[in-house]
């Protein structure tokens, strides 16, 4: 009897439990003996699998059609091993097989279930058009519920004015602190650095024309009127907008929103309104704070880069920037604050009760609020182009 062991690429990984197939050619035909543990833990070792897969592939040929499969000496066969064999056999029992009842039962279980069917992926051209339509519809859907949210906020504000003792005042004060006070360091830092960078850039250009003193005008107008409010709004949208969406979204996931509704507590009055009020109050304050920090940075950089002393800067500023600019900036900030709050609450309330939707909602909320802030800022710039300049 010629014993013909198959050649293995490497013997280093092998021990008694390594799954392998021993091949013997007897006068009655080929005899394939399965040895070792055919289990998930040993099959998922990379070298073991590579060797076994190569061996199984080499056994695919016609010469092995009527081979005798000997599973009597197999150490252990679990469902993954059985699946491997069953797939190799083309989902049918081989003609000659020698097997103990234990492994046979495992194989029979695997054999009893139909194979996984893969649905072929079909490209659907109409889906492309449908997707576009869906997007448009969902845009209008968002717009509709945003308008509804604004209307609800108005009604809630009227209710608050009529019954001030019912208002969620503690909540409001908490939000004022969370959204406002704790944002002071980061907004000051960012504002200051932007002021420094701008002042250096501008001073390089102005020096060429000998128009050094105009740095007060340029910095004053751009920072007070535009950059201060927008910078603050973007920072708050990223910092507090995402937090609001996540808070309300988690409340949806944990059914807290439903619990509130069941108790007859209006989510608009209890959740949306205090956040909107807090942001409407906080936003102009943060905006002024950011502007001051930026002006300070600009002033210091100007005195370092050019002969514009801080004293001159402070004296020239009121003449260079009309007060109406500050009024416009403050009004703009209130609108930004309200929009950020409404958009964040809107996305928070739309979160579906699963983790993926929560993540998507938070991202969408931040992106939308920043975009809307910039859009509305452009709108303000066009509408008030004759004011204060």
């Amino acid at each position, binding site marked *: 009897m010629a014993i013909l062991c198959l050649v293995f690429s490497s013997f280093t990984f092998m021990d008694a439990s390594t799954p392998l197939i021993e091949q013997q050619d007897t006068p009655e035909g080929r005899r394939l003996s399965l040895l070792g543990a055919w289990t998930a833990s040993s099959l998922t070792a990379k070298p073991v699998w590579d060797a076994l*897969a190569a061996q199984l592939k080499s056994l695919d040929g016609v010469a092995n059609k009527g081979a005798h499969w000997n599973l009597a000496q197999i150490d252990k066969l679990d469902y993954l091993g059985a699946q491997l064999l069953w797939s190799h056999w083309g989902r049918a029992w081989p003609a000659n097989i020698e097997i103990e009842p234990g492994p046979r039962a495992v194989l029979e279980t695997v054999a009893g279930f*139909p194979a996984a069917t893969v649905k072929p992926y079909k490209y659907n051209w109409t889906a492309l058009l449908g997707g576009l339509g869906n997007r448009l519809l969902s845009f209008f859907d968002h717009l509709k519920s945003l308008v509804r949210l604004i209307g609800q906020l108005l009604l809630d504000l009227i209710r608050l004015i009529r019954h001030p003792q019912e208002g969620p005042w503690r909540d409001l004060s908490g939000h004022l602190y969370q959204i406002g006070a704790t944002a002071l360091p980061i907004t000051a830092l960012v504002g200051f650095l932007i002021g420094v960078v701008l002042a250096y850039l501008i001073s390089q250009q102005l020096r060429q024309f000998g128009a050094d003193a105009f740095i007060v005008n340029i910095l004053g107008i751009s920072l007070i009127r535009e950059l201060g409010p927008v910078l603050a709004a973007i920072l708050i949208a990223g910092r507090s907008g995402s937090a609001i969406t996540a808070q309300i979204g988690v409340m949806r996931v944990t059914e807290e929103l439903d619990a509130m509704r069941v108790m007859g507590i209006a989510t608009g009055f209890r959740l949306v309104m205090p956040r909107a009020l807090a942001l409407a109050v906080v936003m102009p304050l943060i905006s002024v704070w950011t502007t001051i920090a930026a002006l300070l940075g600009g002033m210091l950089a100007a005195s370092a880069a050019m002969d514009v002393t801080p004293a001159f800067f402070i004296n020239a500023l009121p003449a260079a920037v009309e007060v109406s600019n500050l009024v416009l900036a403050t009004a703009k900030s209130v609108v930004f604050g309200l929009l950020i709050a409404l958009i964040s609450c809107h996305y928070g309330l739309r979160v579906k009760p699963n983790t993926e939707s929560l993540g998507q909602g938070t991202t969408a909320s931040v992106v939308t609020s920043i975009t809307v802030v910039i859009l509305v800022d452009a709108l303000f710039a066009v509408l008030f182009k004759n004011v204060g300049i």
Partner: protein
Amino acid sequence: MLENVVEIKKLWTVFHNGDKVSVVHKDLDLTVVRGEVLSLVGGSGSGKTELLRQILGLENPAKGSVTVLGKPASELGKRGAASRVGMLFQQGALFSAFTVLENIAFPLRELKVLPFELIRNAAMVKLQMVGLSADTADKMPSELSGGMIKRVALARALIMDPPLLLLDEPTAGLDPESSDSFCTLLRALHKDMGLTVVMVTHDLDTLFELSTRIAVLADQKIIINDVPKEVVAFPHPFIHEFFLGERGQRAMELLREYPFTV
């Protein structure tokens, strides 16, 4: 072959809450032998789930040792851990971004060794073994009922045929019918796959239906670890209240009707 699947020796679990220190387990010993279905029973706050987490290696003991399958529990979480121990979490803990089949196949797929065709077929077999139909495969976890979530989570825990299965409140939140069929399923799988099972449960029906042994956690240690009949007869105020109260009496009927083969 290794006889003691789980071996806990002189375990201390201590919680620090501010400057308050509470000792949950004190010199706790527990041994789980191959093939057993061991239920952990104890009052709320007695640290049953905590003990389960210790066995899984998710928490480190303050003192003492936890040995699982001959190795320290802290080494359990290495590559291919799914082939050593399966855990059924109380809420299922399915990945909500994946379909049912992807959830079940996940532990095998992440190893990046086997071809996907084989993995998909293996996952499909497990899906049907837990009593779900093939068309559940493409559903998302959010579309499933509570009982189905538990079944999918069980299929995922068993995808690599681990010898040890841990269950945290397997029938909590299920209606009596799904709870019964889940018990039947667990019993069948335990028999077919030769599993060793450790479970935490409050449900007396599940307890008597499945357990071959019951370990009672009280007074910061395991006060008794024996076959159900002996445990019920053990004199201790907690056991008296738990098993011989009104609810206990009702469930005990089960014990008399189907005497255990132990």
